[in-house]
């Protein structure tokens, strides 16, 4: 079973799924928003908060045969389960909502007050009971903003690990692209994997996000070999990596035998990434990137595994 905002669905009802997207978010709501660089162009804020426009985006995604997506906005920067529920009902796109933590500037104030156990209980409640309307989250998220797992982010990581073992949902991760250069080996995923495994989380319950912001295939292979999912989730954001290179890396991982561990997504979170901002919104992969995968020799069946079968297994609650 997979837990969506509109209730549980059978795995085979998930369909084509983008596993790392944003539908409703506002970065400026972060309780420690002052920790972000305040010289940045205001248009670069992660902000999606127009109901009608977001509904149109989801409907368009549905037209492209997209059937579900994971909404990875956590509490602390505008996640709204009630709106996600309405958008899901209206668009008929399954939405899996997220509990857990984004980076320090967006971690909610209660995370500082609670101890790890109480924090974990809070996350478990978001998965087991849901909000005031019983709208539930179906995945956990943990984030590391700097070179090390420390402070409030470490506390969050521990609470997420504990909640995962209780609920059986998967964990999706964030590492910050501009900080990745500071992380030993160039990618945090392997360090987070070690950390979470030491907390007792099974590697197959981990989805490593943003690996394409600074991919090191040597480390990706190691993580995949242990059983974790490798998620190329900034498809279309070619300032991190050319889509052609993403396709080459995915092909290489397939050739190394890790087809069943690959996920892809687009991490849409700014207006200029959406169709109303002149881009392809949630449809970029289906409209564009799939062709690039075919061009490097990835077959239709393998693509279907990546966008249909792998998400089913990665998001399954067990």
């Amino acid at each position: 079973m997979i837990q969506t905002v509109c209730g549980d669905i059978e795995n085979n009802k998930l369909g084509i799924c983008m596993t790392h997207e944003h539908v409703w978010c506002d970065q400026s709501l972060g309780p420690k928003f002052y920790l972000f660089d305040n010289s940045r162009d205001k248009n670069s804020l992660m902000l999606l908060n127009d109901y009608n426009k977001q509904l149109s985006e989801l409907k368009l995604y549905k037209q492209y045969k997209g059937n579900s997506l994971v909404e990875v906005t956590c509490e602390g920067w505008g996640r709204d389960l009630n709106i996600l529920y309405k958008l899901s009902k209206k668009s008929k796109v399954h939405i899996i909502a997220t509990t857990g933590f984004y980076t320090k500037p967006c971690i909610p104030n209660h995370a500082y007050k609670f101890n790890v156990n109480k924090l974990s209980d809070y996350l478990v409640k978001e998965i087991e009971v849901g909000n005031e309307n019983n709208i539930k989250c179906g995945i956990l998220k943990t984030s590391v903003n700097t070179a090390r797992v420390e402070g409030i982010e470490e506390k969050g990581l521990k609470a997420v690990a504990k909640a995962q073992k209780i609920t059986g949902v998967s964990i999706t991760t964030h590492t910050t692209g501009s900080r990745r250069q500071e992380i030993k080996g160039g990618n945090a995923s392997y360090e987070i994997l070690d950390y979470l495994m030491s907390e007792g989380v099974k590697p197959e319950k981990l989805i490593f996000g943003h690996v394409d912001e600074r991919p090191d295939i040597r480390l990706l292979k190691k993580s995949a070999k242990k059983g974790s999912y490798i998620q190329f989730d900034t498809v279309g954001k070619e300032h991190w990596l050319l889509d052609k290179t993403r396709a080459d890396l995915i092909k290489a991982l397939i050739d190394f035998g890790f087809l069943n561990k690959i996920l892809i997504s687009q991490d849409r979170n700014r207006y200029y990434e959406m169709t109303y901002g002149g881009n392809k919104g949630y449809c970029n992969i289906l409209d564009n990137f799939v062709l690039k995968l075919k061009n490097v020799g990835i077959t239709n069946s393998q693509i279907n595994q990546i966008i249909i079968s792998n998400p089913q297994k990665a998001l399954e609650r067990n």
Partner: protein
Amino acid sequence: MSKSFRQPFTLFTNEIPPFLVTNGNTIFLIQDFHNYFSNVHEGIIFKISDELYLNEELEEYKKLLLIAKKNIISILNFIRKYNNIQTIYTSLGYFEGEKKSIFLETLGWNLILKKNTLFETTLKPKKNDLIFSKGFWSSASNVTFVKYLKKRKISNVIISGNFLEYGIINTTFDLMNMGINTLIVSDAVTSLTYQANTFIKGSITHGLTKLRSTGETIELINDLNTNNQVIL
């Protein structure tokens, strides 16, 4: 449209190791923030731009300058509250009695530094702060400044100020060659354009120096006051 730039070089380089920041091993550098550059009315850049009808060319710089000024003052307030990091000002130009550098001759800028009028009131150095002139973009072009860093065994330099794409980047190169870590306060530095600001922060500095916001730098100063050392 995305404001981001491709930065493939970072895909090939090694990581920057953690820094140990302790009381006494770190300085806060305010580079090229003297009136010649930071005063939007009297600064040499703005005066020349008036004469050349180039005012619009500096609109983005002005905006970044105001943000950087506010942020530098915020950081200074915390440093002065705890007195745990030495503040040093370095300014392109020369004091009376110093020789004008070839670089300044080449630029055609007559930047004579006068201590009393060098900075705006809100940015004025305090008694224990140090001020160095420099004849080139890099702060390390001043040998007295370099001697100071060596004598005090400075390991880390937190950098703010003007012209990320010229002066600050050159300083980070020189300090790296001297084995000194650098942290650029990403919203307490200016560039002449947004594009330059984004590109430098995302590319060259990315593999060379750490970037932290003003808010994060203030947290660092707070943590240093509490714990006497911070790993960054």
